């Protein structure tokens, strides 16, 4: 048994133990032990991965294992990781771990669904079989409905239904895209690496077929990555979800979208990616600016952060579509950085909401004096969000824009400049919000009695801040790990793009 499978087995064990656990204490023990084990596993994997790469392991995917599952349909249980999946697993480990502490007082059923969601997320990142990826993707989606619907706030039933249906609608596109890829490549293997390298019986997918299935696959994953104009589920969903679920959702689940776009759409359909990326580039650039501008006019803290997420996640897809190694490395860094900082943001917003019972920016004032710890954490999250040097956001956005500008043509450069404006807008909405709710004079006597964070809340917040600052201060090792794995994919895209432009006199 491959040790990567532990990422699925541990949550499975956690589900069983939760089922048997008695009392709040038992549930907490199971959750803390389980999520710590997952985090430790992710950290160990990262260390091992880096040392093995340094030791000369040059395969595209390391630690691969494959067991035939449905033989007649060529579906197998295949796992394996490259640099991208390793950092995504690390991110998921951190978010699940801190999310456990943030949802300290929740009941058993909540944690059952929460763990199921984590299982889907971890399973998705370790799989390299199309069927498995799709299955884990859907496993991660459905607990959302009950998590938001039962434990959420606001118009939760509406949001939960909207989110579930939109994402399931996207998975309909995705499923068709997967069939297209599978049968386009000859119907012999579902293994992503095999299809990409035309090994294991896979043939080269015809160009005309690629152009049909690329939009399906890209939209299918893109909806989860909050691609404009299919992002509307995300603000409602985030605003209504309970705190830890918002964290997990914005922090990890939306990354499934970006990761899938890169791993399936770009990796497996490289010619179509060259040919059609401009359409999606326009959409995502619009999304980046639109999300930032929408965030400016929000009065609800969660909505503000949700729209800011739309903008930042749009940036991920935008960078992937630039099809350069630097920009794609930036995209993965952005996923990591956005995952951490938005999780921190949602966590702190949730803690404030839990105390003040309002998330309305107009009703919150002068919190810095009342709850200094939360306020400082809030300010750090905000600053990371607007890309302050020294925190993770800066590194990611810088890489993205440098990488995007490497494309020499006017079209790409114009859109890069367009997307850059979102940084300015981000500064506007973040600084205005921080100034408004943290500083000034508190006018509400009820708010004067608020107490600051508990130990478990502090612990979660500090973990996240350490990670954000860590990436901001020492990003080198991470971007090495990522760009090593991004390079083969982009090289592949570039090489077929080169052939394409030779055969096509109009390019």
């Amino acid at each position: 048994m491959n040790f990567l499978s532990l990422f699925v087995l541990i949550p499975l064990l956690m589900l069983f133990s939760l089922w048997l656990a008695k009392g709040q204490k038992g549930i907490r023990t199971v959750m803390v032990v389980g999520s710590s084990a997952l985090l430790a596993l992710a950290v160990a994997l990262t260390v091992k991965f880096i040392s093995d790469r340094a030791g000369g392991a040059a395969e595209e995917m390391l630690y691969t294992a494959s067991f035939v599952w449905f033989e007649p349909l060529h579906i197998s249980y295949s796992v394996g990781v490259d640099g991208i999946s390793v950092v995504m697993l690390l991110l998921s480990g951190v978010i699940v771990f801190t999310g456990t502490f943030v949802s300290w007082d929740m009941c058993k059923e909540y944690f059952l669904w929460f763990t199921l969601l984590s299982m889907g997320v971890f399973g998705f990142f370790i799989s390299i079989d199309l069927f498995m990826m799709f299955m884990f993707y859907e496993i991660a989606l459905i607990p959302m409905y009950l998590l938001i619907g039962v434990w959420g706030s606001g118009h939760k039933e509406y949001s939960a239904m909207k989110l579930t249906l939109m994402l399931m609608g996207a998975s309909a596109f995705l499923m068709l895209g997967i069939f297209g890829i599978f049968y386009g490549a000859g119907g012999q293997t579902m293994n992503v690496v095999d299809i990409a390298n035309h090994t294991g019986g896979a043939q080269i997918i015809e160009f005309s077929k690629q152009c049909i299935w690329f939009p399906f696959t890209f939209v299918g994953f893109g909806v989860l990555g909050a691609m404009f104009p299919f992002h509307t589920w995300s603000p409602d969903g985030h605003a209504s979800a309970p705190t830890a679920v918002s964290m997990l959702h914005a922090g990890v689940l939306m990354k499934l979208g970006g990761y899938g776009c890169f791993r399936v759409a770009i990796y497996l359909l490289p010619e179509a990616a060259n040919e059609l990326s401009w359409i999606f580039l326009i959409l995502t650039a619009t999304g980046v600016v639109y999300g930032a501008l929408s965030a400016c006019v929000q009065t609800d803290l969660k909505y503000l952060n949700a729209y800011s997420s739309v903008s930042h996640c749009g940036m991920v897809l935008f960078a992937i579509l630039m099809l350069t190694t630097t920009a794609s490395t930036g995209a993965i860094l952005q996923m990591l950085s956005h995952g951490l900082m938005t999780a921190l943001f949602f966590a702190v917003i949730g803690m404030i909401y839990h105390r003040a019972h309002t998330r309305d920016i107009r009703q919150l004032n002068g919190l810095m004096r009342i709850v200094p710890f939360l306020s400082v954490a809030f300010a750090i999250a905000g600053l990371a969000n607007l890309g302050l040097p020294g925190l993770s956001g800066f590194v990611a956005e810088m890489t993205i824009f440098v990488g995007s500008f490497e494309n020499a043509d006017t079209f790409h450069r114009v859109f890069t400049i367009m997307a850059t404006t979102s940084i300015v807008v981000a500064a506007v909405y973040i600084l205005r919000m921080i100034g408004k709710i943290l500083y000034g004079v508190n006018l509400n006597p009820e708010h004067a009695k608020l107490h600051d964070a508990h130990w478990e809340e502090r612990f979660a917040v500090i973990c996240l801040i350490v990670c954000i600052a860590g990436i901001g201060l020492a990003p080198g090792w991470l971007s090495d790990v990522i760009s090593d794995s991004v390079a083969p994919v982009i090289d592949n895209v570039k090489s077929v793009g080169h052939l394409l432009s030779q055969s096509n006199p109009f390019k």
Partner: protein
Amino acid sequence: MDYSQFLYMHDEISLIAVIVILFLADLFLCGDRKSGTVSKALSLLPVGLLALQTAYIASALLCPCGDGMSEAFGGMYQNTPVMTLVKVVLNVGTIIVFLMADSWMKRPENQIKVGEFYMLTLSTLLGMYYMISSGHFLMFFIGLELASIPMTALIAYTKNNQESAEAAAKYILTALFSSGLLLYGISLVYGTCGTMYFDELAAKFSPADTLQLAALVLFISGIGFKISLVPFHLWTADTYQGAPTTVTGYLSVISKGAAAFVLFTILVKVFQPMVEQWNTIMLWIIIFSITVANLFAVRQNNIKRFMAFSAISQAGYLVLGVMGGTAQGMTSLVYYLFVYMVANLGVFLIINVTEQNSGKINISDYNGFYQSNPKLSFIMTLCLFSLAGIPPFAGFFSKFFIFMAAFNAGFPVLVFIALVNTVISLYYYLLIVKAMYIVKNDAPIAPFRSDCYTKTAIAVCALGVVLGGIVSCIYGYIDTLSYGL
């Protein structure tokens, strides 16, 4: 005449034996119901006998002799391993239905007609056996009638209930009408080809012959009534609502599944030269079945009516496997049938036990069901998720595979429409989940304990739903049998 060829029909003969034993037992043993142990043993008798018979016919699958194919009476009766497998699946479903029926049978008003229930149900099952194994249109027709007519009596089982009687009237009228259509189609076949043996027909068909095309259309319409595909579905909702819940469960899975399988075999075996024509017809029937049923299901409040529309749309997905008539389609159809059976019977078990204990059958009655009956609502959720195709439950796998088969057969647009429809279906299945978990209710259905037969059946269904997909050997096994049509 060589009488030994009767032995080829050992599946059917063993079922007839079960019916005869039950008939005699009903005649001689059920006169006095005083002794508790005797009556308990008697209530186990049908389930036990059917389980024995299932084991008997399944044993033929485990140790096949030759290629497992057999035919009798010059090809009127044919049997292949996959047909035996379908019979086993139907048997398992019937056993679950019998377990479900037990508490209902124990009601005082049903005491005098317990034997009838079992015998009628097994008679329809026998009809389905013959339908599946037929090699001749008359054999097929007799099987179909044997499967329909006792069904009417079952639907009208609670004869003093007006709705039940109405449902039966509706069913028998549409069933007769569809039989008429089918017979007319068969007569056209005989008129143009001069034979009704399946093996000989394929060579004599040609798509250019208008009369034969008419026969194809009439055949699909006739059997479309049984599977309740749109536009032949109009009887479904009223019949499902009016029939006793146990019978509704039986109707929605067993008779539908058998008919869908037969549709596949006859289209592939007999109407092979007209494959393009029937592909077109089935394409539109499937699109309409899935879409119309989904749109209607959204608006229902009575849970049995709701399940009727859900069943119509599931039937649409089921016959997706028919498209193109490939071996992959056959495997995924049988697999879908199995998975749909456990999930749908799981839902009906819970509807039934709730109705028996509280008399409530509206979706709004289920508000807050989780607070009062957490275990039942949890299993109901699993089954609904499976019906909606959510992983890791079996329904996800069966939907994925059947879409894959249709895609491979060359119908991507149809698959896309069906996929969009799964989102609508997810919406209405989630409405029930929402009612159970999210909607607050001051007076939810009071907590109750279900009897041990129901518990066993629910456990079987839950196990099937959870393991039916992950355990890949089920699909693999069906695939090894899907040959030799």
